[in-house]
Structure formats: C-alpha cells, structure tokens
C-alpha cells in the first residue's frame, strides 16, 4: 500500500518536473494534491475490511475478557471440560505407550514372529505359538524373504553371581538373533563362532543386569557367572533399551546346550522371530512361509499334518489382547467427553440466550453472522484450551494411577506418560470438542433477528422455542450416553462378580507357593525330597507338596494316548493335555480333591513302575463311564514310556476362571528327572501363609546355599486372573459414575433454568387459578419427557454398543435384563430428584411478584 502511494507521488513529481516545475516545488505540490497519506491508507484498510488475523486476535481478547467477567461460569465450564479432557489424556497416554509407540529397535516394523498354528484347534496360550527346531531349520533354509531369522527359548533360571544365587531371565538364542534386532554390544563383543559350539560358556548380558551387579557395563566383560552349575563368562553387554524377550538379563548361544528335543519335530519348545527384507510385505512373506509349511506337512505327515505357520508383527505379538481392552477404555472415556461437551454446550446456550441482546447490538452495528459465530467459537476454543491445560496436568497423575492399577499382563506400561504425542492428541481433542460444544449455541444465537430482539424490552430475554429444543436435545444426549456407559460398566461388574464366584477347583487361601531352583539339576530331586521333609515338620503346616507350575501357570502341555500307542504317531490329531510334575501331598496342600485311587507316594520313584494321575476332564474324555484306574497312559512329554493310572483328581481351571477346565495329567517328580529342576513348594498352613515365607527360604538355603527362591501366596497368584476384568470393570463403572454426575447436573441445570425463564408464565397461570400442584405437575411432566426420551434412546444405543463387550463378558449376556433394569431404575430415580427440586421451586412462585418482575 505504502509502495503504491510512493510510486504515485514519484510519478506525479516527475510529470511536474517534466512540465517545468523545480523538483522541490514539484514534490511539495504532489504532496499537497494527494492530501493525507495516512488518511488514504486508513481509507484503504477500511475498504478492504479488517484482516482475518486482526479479527482473530480481537476475538481472543474478547473471549478472555468475557471469561474474566463471569469467573464462576468460566470455572464451571473449564472444570467440566478438564475432567473430560484429563480422563481422555490419561487413557490415551496408556494407549499410546502400549499400542502406538514403535518398539525400541531399528526399523521395528520389519520384525515378525513366526508361530505354529494347529489348524484344528485355537491356541490356548502363548505356549501354542512355540516351534520345533527341525521345523525352524527348514523355514530358515528354504525361505528367501528374511534378512535374519532366529529361534529362542526363555525361562527364569538360578544364577549365582559371586556367592549368592537368584533368579534371572535367561534366553537361549541362535546366531542370527541379534541381527533380527540389529543390536550390537555396547561393551565387549558379540559371540565368536567357537563360543557357539556345544559346551562353550559365553554369555551376553543386559545393561540393567550389568549395572545391578558390576556398577557399569564396561566392567562386566570378563566376569564369571554360574548358570546350570557351570561357569559362564560374560563377553559383552547389550544396549540400554534391549531386554528382549520379557526383560531378559542373560543371552546364551542355544547351540552350547545339549538339547535332546532339538531333533524332534514335535518338541515345540522355542519361539521364532525374523527380520523381513526391506522390500518384502507381510502378505508376501506369509505366502512364501505358508507354502513352505505345506511342503513340510507333506514331507512329515506324522508330526506336521495340520501344522501351519503364522507371521505376526512383533508389536502385535507383544501387545496381544491388551489392545481390545485399551480401545474399550478409550471408547468409554470418549463417551464421558461427549457428555461433558453436551453439558458445557447447555451452559453456553443458556449464557448465549442471555447474550441475545449483546449479539443483536453487534449485528445491528454491522457484525456479520459468520463473525459472531467465529467469536463464539473462539470463546469455546479458549475454554477448551484452558481446560485442556488443566486436564493435562491432572492426567500426569491420572496416568500414574492407571499404570498402578493396570493388570501386570499389559506390556510396555512403564513407558506411559504425558509426552509430546499425547499432548498433540490433547490439543486435537480440545479443538474438536470446542467446535462440538460451541458451534450449536453459536449458530443458535447468531440467528437472532436483531430488529426483533432490540425492540423487545431490554432485560426481557427472548426465549426462542428453538433454544429450548436445542437444550433438550443436549440433555437427552447426555442421558442416552450415560445409559450406554452405565450399562457397559454394569455388565462388566456383574461379569467380575460371576468370575469371582467360579470355583477354581482348588482352595488358594492359606497356601504359600515357593519356587525354588537348585544350581545343580542332578541334585534337584534330592534337594526337594529333603526340603519337603523339613517343611512338613514345621509348626503350622497342614500339608506340603511340590509342583512344577502352581495352578494357573501352565508350564507344559503334551498329547496323550490310552492303553496303546498308534502305529503312526500323529501329534496333530492326538488329544492335548496339560502336563504337571508333582510330589506326594501336593493335591492335599492345594485342596484338589482326590476322586478315586490314590495320591503319589515316595515309592513312585525312579526305577519303580511308572505311574500317573489324571483329572476328571481327561477321565471323562478318554474313558466315558468306565473306570480309568489300572489303565495305561502314554504322554508325548519327556518320554513315551507307558504309565499306569493310579488316581483321578478334580478339575482345576488352569487358564483362569473364565475358561473351562481342560484334561490334565500329573506325573511323580521322582520319575521325571528332566522336568524337576524347578519346582514350587506348595504349603497349606493353619494361619497366615505369608508368615512362613522367611522360614521356608531359610530351610531352602540350609539344604543348598546356591538355590534361588521366590515365595508368594496362592491368593496373590490367583488374583492376577482377576486383575484385567477388575481393571476394565472398575474403570468403565467409574466413567459411568462421572457420566451420571454430569448428566444429573445437566438435567438439574436445564430444569432450574426453565423454571426461572417461565416464572412469569407460571405466575400468570397461578393468577388465573392454577394450583401449585398443577404447576408442579406441569414441570415434572416436561422434565420427565426429556428423561424418558434419553432413557429410551440410551437403551437402544446400549443394546447396540454392549455387543462390542461380548469378549469381555463372562456368564453375562450383553442383553442382561438385570443390568438394564438397574440402570434404568438408577437413572430414573436420580433424574426424578434432579427434576423435582427445581420444579418444586416453580410451584412456590408468587404470582404477583412474578408478574411485576419487569
């Protein structure tokens, strides 16, 4: 603009100079002729209109001024939105950490797990994904789509550092394992070829383990650990973030340990993992691997028929079924946010109606409709941002609380926090909700006819029929969404109660479980026999036994045959069973009833005839109504020797209360030397089992100083089954309660407002003869209609939405009548109260005062 005018003046000056005027005189004349340059500029600006940025800045100033002017109102709106946004931020921070953050490896999307799939039956747990070494070798040698492929097996083992023994996670890995993750040691070096030979003793350790025992990683290489009763030298330390899988402390070349099962295609004892080549997609890789699996099926029908292969991105494999639960929570908390929006929209609408006059004046002074809408939107945005800031701060604690109460099975929780991506999400949410709650009132109020409104006497607000309708719609929405949330919460709570009433098949109370691993596998049997003798004589001990995995922690599965082995062993078609190794007295200690036959006894030892005890499910499955005692069972476990069934015990829900019991076979620990290196001593006590833990630890160390032990009560172990259902039920119910409060406040607010608005009308009615009763009824009826509409829509919505819950429910159907009835009753009673109190005020209106009010 300035350029243009300067050019103009210069051209004029030149023309004048050409015409013969002296330059100074010409410049003066040009200026005089032009007049005020600033005036012209101002005129131009006006002609062009106010710039968008200027107007926006003005809107922000207005908005802040407006909020300062009515602090109570602003506080209420900000408070409601802060609850909604804060809760969403907290839940999202968990979702982000668990589901969205990439894994901390280079190019993590290319890392996939390779899992066994038995086509005829669904996988019961992670054990089903394990693969055998020969299968892996064929996959590895025949495939072309991987940069690297490795198998690994992981378990907690007893490690002696210096003189003390403790549990640490040890993972056996094959050569390409570290290439799959693309990691190099930060101190020391990788394994050499010699260190991968049978009997070699080299290990890599994690940075965390190095810090714990050697102060810093650089000091660890060269140090010696004792694992499996032999010395192992640390050759290198892996980087800080690397502890795959499951917080591994020590990695070990798989080829250094003699593994008799490494030649059997049926010994599915390892997990497999690979890094896809850069330009290979998952479907392409799956196609190739499937065809390899099909070739193996044909080549080895005995072991491989019905065996498939699934590729899963490592992130999906890690997250498992935590994803569904977290998305459920995100959905629930999203509904809370919608209710908060409806609530604030109602408030803003009420306030906007009060501002009709202001808007009319602004419209009369030339503000366009879009300008007014924009200003109200900016006000909404300012509200949302302030609420978002407060909510984000609150979410820091909220996230910590969520992590604290979350079930331990949810992976990657430790990384949850309010960070950059989470704040971006929050900002996005703020923007969206500000439009949601500010736009309807803005459109509403900007529609006001300036003329009409200004003519109406100042102070007497025009209550448009549409304004009321819109408010009613908001309240109906709030109630409907609350019904959905409460129904969901109710169903989950009832499922939790049902779960807790399921009999697990054993009595977990008063039972201490102490896991123990002696350093020497050869001396393990003797150690446990001795320890059991010691423990049985302790005061307060009612019964004692030992089992390789306490109930609920299935460690081994196998397949079984009754009476004779088929000519061709087909593991795919043989029935599966849970395999456990136990000591005499275990069933009594755990409270598993012996149905028939006998318990194991000390005579069921190595060299004696092999015996087995089966559970009811296996008896029913294999023998129908005949007596299983005396029959012979073969198990694909450690050997295929025949074992005589000497007893039948009750079923135990090994996979948690939600899953039916499955067939189980128990074997005496003295006859299965390969599988008794780690046992959990289970002790039933007359008093608090926790008090016995120290004595037991002491007894164990007296027997063998280098044994690792870990004691917990059975109650704690069992509690983990309920952690996830409790987590989601409590949270959804909590969100439902927040929703209920918001909705009740919404109903109350709207009724109170309506009563205030209609006091003149009510006064008139009463002056004309209506009784207080009539008026009360009128108001109750009006409120009741809104609530009824909300309930009805909510029930329809709940019927649809709760179907999404099916996988989380136990013994409760999504259309559970009791839940629906309770929700309707609860909401009905509470909202009637929320209507009643304001309505009662209407019947107390003094006709004369109301009519004279203005």
């Amino acid at each position, binding site marked *: 603009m300035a350029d*243009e005018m300067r050019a103009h003046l210069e051209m004029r000056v030149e023309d004048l100079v050409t015409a013969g005027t002296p330059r100074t005189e010409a410049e003066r004349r040009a200026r005089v002729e032009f007049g005020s340059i600033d005036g012209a500029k101002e*005129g131009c600006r006006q002609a*062009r209109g106010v710039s968008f940025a200027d107007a926006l800045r003005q809107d922000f100033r207005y908005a802040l001024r407006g909020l300062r002017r009515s602090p109570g109102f602003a506080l209420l709106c900000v408070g409601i939105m802060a609850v909604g946004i804060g809760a969403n931020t907290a839940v999202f921070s968990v979702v982000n950490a668990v589901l969205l953050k990439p894994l901390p490896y280079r190019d993590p999307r290319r890392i996939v797990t390779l899992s066994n799939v038995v086509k005829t039956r669904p996988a019961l747990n992670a054990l089903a994904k394990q693969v055998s070494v020969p299968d892996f070798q064929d996959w590895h040698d025949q495939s072309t789509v991987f940069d690297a492929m490795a198998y690994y097996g992981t378990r907690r083992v007893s490690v002696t550092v210096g003189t003390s023994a403790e549990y640490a996670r040890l993972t056996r890995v094959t050569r390409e394992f570290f290439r799959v993750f693309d990691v190099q040691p930060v101190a020391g070096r990788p394994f050499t070829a010699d260190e991968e030979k049978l009997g070699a003793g080299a290990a890599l350790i994690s940075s965390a383990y190095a810090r714990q025992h050697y102060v810093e990683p650089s000091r660890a290489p060269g140090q010696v650990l004792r694992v499996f009763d032999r010395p192992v030298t640390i050759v290198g330390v892996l980087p800080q973030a690397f502890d795959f899988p499951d917080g591994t402390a020590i990695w070990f070349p798989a080829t250094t340990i003699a593994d008799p099962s490494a030649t059997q295609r049926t010994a599915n004892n390892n997990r497999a993992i690979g890094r896809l080549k850069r330009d290979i997609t998952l479907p392409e890789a799956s196609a190739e691997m499937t065809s390899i699996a099909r070739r193996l099926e044909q080549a080895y029908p005995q072991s491989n028929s019905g065996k498939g292969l699934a590729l899963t991105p490592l992130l999906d494999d890690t997250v498992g079924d935590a994803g569904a639960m977290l998305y459920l929570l995100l959905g629930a908390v999203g509904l809370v946010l919608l209710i908060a929006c409806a609530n604030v929209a109602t408030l803003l609408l009420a306030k906007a109606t009060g501002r009709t006059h202001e808007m009319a004046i602004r419209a009369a002074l030339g503000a366009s409709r879009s300008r007014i809408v924009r200003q109200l939107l900016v006000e909404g945005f300012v509200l949302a941002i302030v609420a978002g800031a407060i909510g984000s701060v609150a979410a820091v604690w909220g996230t910590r609380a969520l992590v604290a109460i979350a079930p331990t099975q949810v992976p990657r929780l430790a990384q949850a926090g309010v960070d950059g991506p989470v704040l971006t999400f929050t900002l996005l949410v703020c923007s969206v909700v500000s439009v949601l709650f500010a736009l309807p009132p803005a459109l509403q109020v900007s529609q006001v006819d300036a003329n009409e409104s200004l003519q109406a006497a100042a102070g007497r607000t025009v209550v448009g029929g549409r304004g009321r309708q819109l408010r009613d719609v908001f309240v109906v929405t709030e109630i409907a969404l609350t019904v959905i949330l409460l129904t969901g919460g109710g169903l989950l709570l009832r499922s939790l109660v049902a779960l807790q009433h399921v009999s697990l098949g054993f009595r977990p109370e008063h039972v201490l479980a102490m896991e123990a691993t002696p350093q020497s596998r050869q001396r393990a049997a003797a150690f446990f026999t001795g320890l059991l003798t010691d423990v049985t004589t302790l005061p307060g001990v009612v019964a004692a036994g030992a089992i390789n995995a306490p109930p609920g922690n299935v460690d081994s599965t196998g397949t079984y045959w009754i009476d004779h082995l088929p000519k061709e062993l087909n593991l795919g078609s043989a029935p599966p069973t849970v395999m456990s190794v136990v000591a005499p007295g275990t069933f009594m200690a755990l409270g598993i009833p012996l149905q028939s036959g006998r318990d194991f006894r000390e005579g069921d030892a190595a060299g004696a005839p092999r015996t087995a005890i089966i559970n009811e499910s296996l008896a029913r499955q294999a023998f129908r109504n005949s007596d299983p005692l005396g029959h012979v069972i073969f198990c694909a476990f450690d050997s295929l020797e025949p074992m005589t069934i000497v007893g039948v015990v009750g079923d135990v829900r090994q996979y948690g209360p939600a899953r039916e019991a499955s067939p189980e076979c128990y074997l005496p620990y003295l006859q299965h030397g390969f599988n008794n290196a780690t046992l959990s001593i289970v002790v039933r006590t007359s008093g608090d089992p926790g008090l016995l833990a120290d004595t037991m630890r002491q007894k164990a160390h007296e027997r063998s100083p280098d044994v690792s032990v870990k004691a917990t009560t059975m109650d704690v172990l069992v509690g983990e089954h309920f952690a996830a259902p409790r987590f989601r039920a409590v949270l959804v119910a909590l969100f439902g309660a927040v929703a209920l409060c918001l909705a009740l406040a919404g109903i109350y607010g709207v009724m109170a407002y309506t009563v205030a608005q209609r006091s003149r009308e009510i006064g008139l009615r009463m002056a004309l003869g209506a009784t207080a009763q009539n008026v009360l009824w009128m108001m109750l009826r009006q409120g009741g209609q809104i609530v009824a509409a909300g309930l009805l829509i909510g029930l329809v919505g709940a019927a649809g939405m709760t179907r999404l819950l099916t996988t989380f429910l136990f013994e409760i159907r999504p259309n559970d009548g009791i839940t629906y009835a309770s929700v309707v009753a609860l909401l009905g009673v509470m909202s009637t109260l929320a209507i009643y109190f304001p309505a009662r005020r209407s019947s107390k209106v003094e006709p004369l005062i109301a009519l004279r009010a203005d």
Partner: protein
Amino acid sequence: MAKKPADLLPGTLDMLILKAVSLKPLHGYGVLLRIAQISRDVLDVPQGSLYPALYRLEHQGLINAEWGESENKRRAKFYTLTPAGRKRLRDETASWNRLVSAIAHSLSATPDEV
C-alpha cells in the same frame, strides 16, 4: 483557457474508475490521468479518495491488481477489469444514462408540457 474543474457527484468515482480501467490496465496514477483525459480535464478526482476506492473495488472483486512495471520502468500496481467489473460498468452506465436523460428531460420541460 483552463476549464474550472467540477466536483464529482457522490457515487460516480467508482464508475469512472471502472471505465478508466476498462480501456486499458492502469496503475493508480494512470487512473487519475485517464479520468482527467477522458473527461477533458473537467473532472478532478481527489487523490486521497482514489486509493480507498481502488481497494474497495478490488475487495468487491470488480477489479484485479497485479504488480508490474510502469512505462518509465517503475514498479507499480496495475489494475484490470474483472468480468464482474465489466458487468457492473455496463449496468452502471445504463442506469446513469437513464438518470441523466430523465433529469435532462425534466430540466428542459416547458410550461406547455405540464
């Protein structure tokens, strides 16, 4: 002899600008000179109100502005007529002509015609 410049009638400046620009793309100073030229130096546009008028017309989408180079190599903003401006000029010209002829006719009325 120089004719005495006449004041513009209110509302006619926009029309004159549109006319001036319709003949040939012009910069602001050029518009001034062109109006003086086509009105045979009768009409004198107040320079201070020229630019607000130009910005107003641009804002209404009747003219377009583009930076270019003037005849004596100076950077200047050139205005051209948009299709909407052309239509407006046609309408305004027609209604102006109606108005002028009506007023002229009115002023030339004689007592006989009453």
